[in-house]
């Protein structure tokens, strides 16, 4: 394993971003093209749509020790797949309600909408979220959270909410 | 409609300049089996001067009356006067906001309730008594009486607050009077303001606006104007001579409250409808319409 996994010694925290391909990932690209300086903590995972983002990915990241998770997609009504971001919104709202039960500070998770042209907005988002996570400091060890999440069967909770269908 | 009891807020003018509105409203309600129970120890709503001075003061003056209604065990109050209604509704609406409620309550001896609603007696006639019941009670239709209905500005406005009838083309009075066998002519100025608020301080303004309404009514060859508002009535009836003087006209246009014509069509006595209290004598017009 390369040493880079120990992020904390550079003063960086572990922040994971889940971005939809069409709007926010392009927006982040556009911010790069415009050389809009951002903190370096964020690592971005590309998905086709925010509707592809399973809340369990986020939960897993936080349980595994991520200090923050940022989700960003197309503005409501702008989804490349018509309604993917509405599904995402509903699922992520549920996640927000469930995080405190599992002992995770919900402040460590944020979702937002950034379009492909909003490079400035993306820069702001990254700056603000990174600053917030730094203000919260490194996440506490999640050992007890892991066991608790099993007790509560969080996965069941999340899935239940989804059962409403489209 | 047997022996329904409603809380009833007459408003100050009901005890003075619009005594005949109060009287005829109660008479017709009673005839239709509704007991109008006067709100105990009510006070003035502050009318337009109060909200022209301060919204919290205005809400507090009406809030006190809402509290009176609540203490009678009622959650609905009716009033014949659109200006009072507007204030009662405004207060009932405003106190749903926590901040405003705190401010209002700080002016009052008691808590302003949040669950009392206010509607006009006009709305009560239309929605709770119903056109069918009204029609059944008509014994004396007046098909030769041609009237226009003038609603004024406040009966339906602002629509978000009043939630009654159409703000641009209200039809509630038209429909009730047609039920009473009276010919109602469509009136284009039915929601134009008559300027009543300025009757005393700026009579020049109110005379001009009231003049427009009287002119249009006589151009349409109406026998009378029918209103549901004491302020409109006072402006058009009591001040008709002032209007004539200011506009150089010679109107002798009777201005009825709709409840008076309802009562006449139901064969109720003129005395109990306060017809003699109208400033412009309605008798010639009623005689032509065949009302004894």
């Amino acid at each position, binding site marked *: 394993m390369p040493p880079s996994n120990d992020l904390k010694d550079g003063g960086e925290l572990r922040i994971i971003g889940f971005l939809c391909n069409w709007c926010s990932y392009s927006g982040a690209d556009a911010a790069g093209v415009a050389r809009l300086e951002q903190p370096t903590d964020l690592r971005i995972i590309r998905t086709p749509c925010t509707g592809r983002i399973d809340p369990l990915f986020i939960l897993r990241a936080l349980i595994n020790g991520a200090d923050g998770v940022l989700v960003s997609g197309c503005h409501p009504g702008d989804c490349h797949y018509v309604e993917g971001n509405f599904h995402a919104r509903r699922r992520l709202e549920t996640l927000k309600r469930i995080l405190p039960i599992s002992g995770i500070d919900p402040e460590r998770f944020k979702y937002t909408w950034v379009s492909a042209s909003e490079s400035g907005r993306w820069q702001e988002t990254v700056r603000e979220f990174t600053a917030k996570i730094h203000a919260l400091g490194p996440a506490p060890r999640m050992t007890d959270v892991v066991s608790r999440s099993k007790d509560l069967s969080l996965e069941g909770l999340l899935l239940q909410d989804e059962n409403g269908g489209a | 409609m047997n022996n329904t009891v409603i809380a009833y807020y007459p408003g100050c003018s009901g005890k*003075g300049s619009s005594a005949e509105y109060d009287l005829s409203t109660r008479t017709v309600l009673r005839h239709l089996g509704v007991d109008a129970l006067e709100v105990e120890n009510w006070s003035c709503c502050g009318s337009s*001067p109060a909200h*022209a*001075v301060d919204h919290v*003061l205005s809400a507090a003056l009406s809030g006190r009356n809402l509290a009176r209604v609540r203490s009678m065990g009622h959650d609905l109050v009716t009033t014949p006067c659109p200006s009072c209604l507007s204030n009662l509704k405004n207060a009932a609406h405003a106190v749903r906001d926590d901040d405003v409620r705190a401010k209002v309550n700080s002016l009052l001896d008691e808590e302003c309730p949040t669950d009392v609603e206010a509607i006009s007696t006009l709305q009560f006639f239309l929605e709770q008594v119903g056109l069918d019941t009204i029609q059944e009670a008509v014994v004396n239709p007046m098909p030769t009486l041609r009237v226009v209905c003038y609603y004024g500005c406040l009966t339906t406005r602002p629509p978000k607050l009043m939630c009654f009838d159409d703000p641009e083309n209200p039809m509630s009075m038209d429909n009730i009077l047609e039920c009473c066998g009276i010919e109602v002519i469509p009136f284009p100025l039915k929601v134009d303001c008559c300027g009543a608020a300025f009757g005393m301080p700026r*009579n020049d303004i109110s005379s001009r606006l009231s003049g427009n309404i009287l002119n249009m009514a006589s151009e349409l060859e109406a026998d009378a104007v029918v209103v549901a508002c004491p302020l409109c009535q006072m402006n058009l009836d009591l001040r008709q001579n002032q209007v004539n003087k200011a506009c150089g006209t010679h109107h002798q246009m009777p201005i009825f409250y709709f409840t008076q014509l309802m009562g006449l069509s139901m064969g109720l006595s003129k005395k109990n409808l306060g017809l003699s209290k109208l400033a412009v004598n309605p008798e010639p017009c009623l005689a032509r319409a065949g009302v004894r």
Partner: protein
Amino acid sequence: MQAITIQEQDNDFRAEVERRSGQSMVECYQCGNCTAGCPFDFAYDLPVSKIMRLVQLGQREIVLSCHSIWLCASCKTCTTRCPNSIDVAKIMDVLRHMARESGHIKERTVKAFEDSFLASVKKTGRLHEVGVALGYEMRTGRFLTDIDLVQTMVSKGKLSIKPHSMHNSDQVAEIFKRFNGGIHE
């Protein structure tokens, strides 16, 4: 005509109007519909849509010292027809409150009428029409106002020299006292 220096506009004024009325001034796109329907426009010195514009431009002095805000009858025609659903009448109300507070009284008779009306309510709990008229005449010195009406009203039994009775009228007086005590903002 005076020139407005745009950078010197009083944004606090605009913000205060927005806060007290709960309306957003930017939404007004100056279509003029409020002016078009205002029954009092003929008596106004500033048409209501211009007042909206001048508030947008933060022109406190011009707005608070106009006559129009005293002549608005709250008929709500403007509010009902504004394509942006702005409660224009409420803004007019708020401007009159602000004019009162800052001593910009452009229609003395209107203010006198409002004052006598409220004084009457404060005194007796209910409106006493004779009381209002007398109070108004005292305040304005316009002694024969509506004297022609008095005769008719008396003959129709609509005018009582004594106020209509209610008990606990002091409760109402209390409301006014607390109000004057400045409990509200």
